[in-house]
């Protein structure tokens, strides 16, 4: 190190000047913690960079903080230590936890009102926004990346089995017919699923207009109880177990491990997130179609509409008004049609505003890219009922795990469906009661 005294003086001067200069520009920094990886991470950075370049007062800094549970834990710890981020991306099962943390969050509608920004919840897709509004219709968080489960079918495998590749099964009855033929044609794995609880319990309920829990799936009160052990639910799980025995259903795990088995050609049918389309398109060497989930035609009201998964952006409390103004401006930017269109088309997540959907439709994007509008159409299939607005259960991270554990014991042949779903309800309710007690 040859800096010596003169060098040190220079360094001090330089820092002082630079510091002064930086002071003069005083850009308010806004921290955004998220869990998007890979290409999605790039998109997030694009959005932030675009916003930063469009104005001089605020700078959004996106930081990848690990998976959804990890980033939420980090944020909670940071909040307790007094340095939470401004914006936090929280997955849908964390909604109730965030909503109950009234002292920790700044509701989006309130923030927008205080910052005098025009904000109309009606601009947002009903099926998406509904999940995150309180009982008065006020939006508490901003929808960001939402998807819904859809039904992917390997058209080549259908051809090989003598089925019409353009006619994907609409009901579970038709599904059984197809499954049998596929198995007979030598298909080793006929059907698999990602996110088993999200698809076969939560969306099964919404799509067939059955309640997941009382009190409008928890929207109306913390004293909700689960209802996923109804005869219809039990029959559905038992059906899957039966298919597992017949070799028509192969279990692949709790997240999206199933997707690789579909696009590798191993499994002929898949139910998983609509956001998986991009990956599947990239990797599948066969022709495939995207369809509505099969519904149960013996249940009145089916098919209703599906519910979303994914995450939203929550704003943390305790920040300065100027910072909230910046967040508000960013949210408006994020909701603008151009940004939404680019996000929707680039990622496969559904557009969150009606405007973005209209623009995309008019541009003929959906015609040129068949299957990309299935998610939205399924979400909007019918106006939501109390059973299909979404769900709001406390500690649902644990709750969903309980459901998945019980499902696994059924598929592994360890329990029958009725016992398992009864146990799921019992254990799930214990979790709900604990949440209720801690948040009274």
């Amino acid at each position, binding site marked *: 190190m040859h800096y010596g005294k003169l060098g040190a003086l220079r360094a001090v001067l330089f820092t002082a000047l630079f510091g002064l200069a930086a002071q003069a520009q005083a850009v308010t920094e806004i921290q955004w913690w998220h869990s998007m*990886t890979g290409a999605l991470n790039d998109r997030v950075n694009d959005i932030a960079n675009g916003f930063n370049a469009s104005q001089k007062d605020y700078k959004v800094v996106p930081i990848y903080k690990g998976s959804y549970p990890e980033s939420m834990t980090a944020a909670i710890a940071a909040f307790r230590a007094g340095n939470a981020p401004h914006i936090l991306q929280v997955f849908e099962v964390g909604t109730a936890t965030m909503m109950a943390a009234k002292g920790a969050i700044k509701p989006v509608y309130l923030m927008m009102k205080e910052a005098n920004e025009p904000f109309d919840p009606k601009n947002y897709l009903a099926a998406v926004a509904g999940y995150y509004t309180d009982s008065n219709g006020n939006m508490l968080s901003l929808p960001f990346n939402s998807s819904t489960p859809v039904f992917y079918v390997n058209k080549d495998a259908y051809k090989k089995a003598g089925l019409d590749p353009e006619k994907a099964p609409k009901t579970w009855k038709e599904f059984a017919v197809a499954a049998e033929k596929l198995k007979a044609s030598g298909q080793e794995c006929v059907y698999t699923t990602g996110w088993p609880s999200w698809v076969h319990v939560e969306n099964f309920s919404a799509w067939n207009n059955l309640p997941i829990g009382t009190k409008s799936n928890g929207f109306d009160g913390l004293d909700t109880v689960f209802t996923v052990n109804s005869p219809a639910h039990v029959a559905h799980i038992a059906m899957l177990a039966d298919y597992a025995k017949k070799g028509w259903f192969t279990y692949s795990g709790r997240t999206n491990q199933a997707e690789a088995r579909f696009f590798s050609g191993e499994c002929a049918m898949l139910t998983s997130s609509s956001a998986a389309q991009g990956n599947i398109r990239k990797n599948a060497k066969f022709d495939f179609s995207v369809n509505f989930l099969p519904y149960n035609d013996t249940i009145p009201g089916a098919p209703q509409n599906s519910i979303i998964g994914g995450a939203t952006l929550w704003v943390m409390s305790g920040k300065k008004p100027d910072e909230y103004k910046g967040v508000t401006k960013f949210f408006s930017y994020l909701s603008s049609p151009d940004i939404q269109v680019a996000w929707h088309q680039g990622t496969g997540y559904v557009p969150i505003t009606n405007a973005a959907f209209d623009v995309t439709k008019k541009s003929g994007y959906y015609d040129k890219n068949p299957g990309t509008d299935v998610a939205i159409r399924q979400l909007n299939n019918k106006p939501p009922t109390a059973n299909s607005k979404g769900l709001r259960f406390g500690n649902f991270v644990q709750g969903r795990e309980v459901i998945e554990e019980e499902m696994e014991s059924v598929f592994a042949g360890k329990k029958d469906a009725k016992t398992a779903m009864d146990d799921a309800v019992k254990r799930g309710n214990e979790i709900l009661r604990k949440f209720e007690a801690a948040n009274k």
Partner: protein
Amino acid sequence: MVENRPWLTFFSHAVLIAGVVLVAFPLYMTFVASTLTLEEILQVPMPLVPGGHLWENYVQVLTAGSERGAAAPVGRMMLNSLIMALAIAFGKIAISIIASFAIVYFRFPLRNFFFWVIFVTLMLPVEVRIIPTFKVASDLGILNSYVGLTLPLIASATATFLFRQFFMTVPDELAEAARIDGAGPMRFFVDVLLPLSKTSIAALFVIQFIYGWNQYLWPLLITTEESMYTTVIGIKRMITGGDALTEWHLVMATAMLALLPPALVVVLMQRWFVKGLVDTEK
């Protein structure tokens, strides 16, 4: 061996070779996988001989991380692991040796109390105090920092005990001679004890380096920013990609990079390693 039984000797060699093969098998397959492309791995069964993509996989992983999982460059992660391993090894040795010196060579009030305080930490591995230790680190503001990665892991009862045992075997005459010569305690420590302790220090260094490099739970909790990941954590984060697909070829390349440095240390410093293991337990 008492009598000559060639059949038994042959059998022994056979068993040992089988053992070595079994132990080496995962490593071999990992290496093979790290030289293939993802498509080749996804084709079941994957090839049993190395493929031709060694260079590009390792370069990609070192400089850019995996594409679809957590994308910190592994080169950076290895640096973090190295800093953590070295800091923990040196740190532990430093504070334990002086603490041990104090316990053994001094009489002072509360001496026994302090000894037990150190001893009790044996019963508090980080796993039983996960959340509160995380909270303390968070409150101190040392999350996502080298300080946070290393400082909480530096206090070690085993190192202190090792030095204590060793000091007990140092002849009293040496200390006496130092006293007679008018040397103060620190003089004695630096001029006499330290040089004598070289082998113990070397042995402990090997063990602690491996311990620090292979740390899992603590870095997992305390780092949420990619730039602070260690190699071992990086692997795990590449696998649980959520909306993405596991890129096994890159994961395996990272695994190779994660295990090579400690493996080299073990093999090259075998003598110290064995001594370190045996001494810290007996």
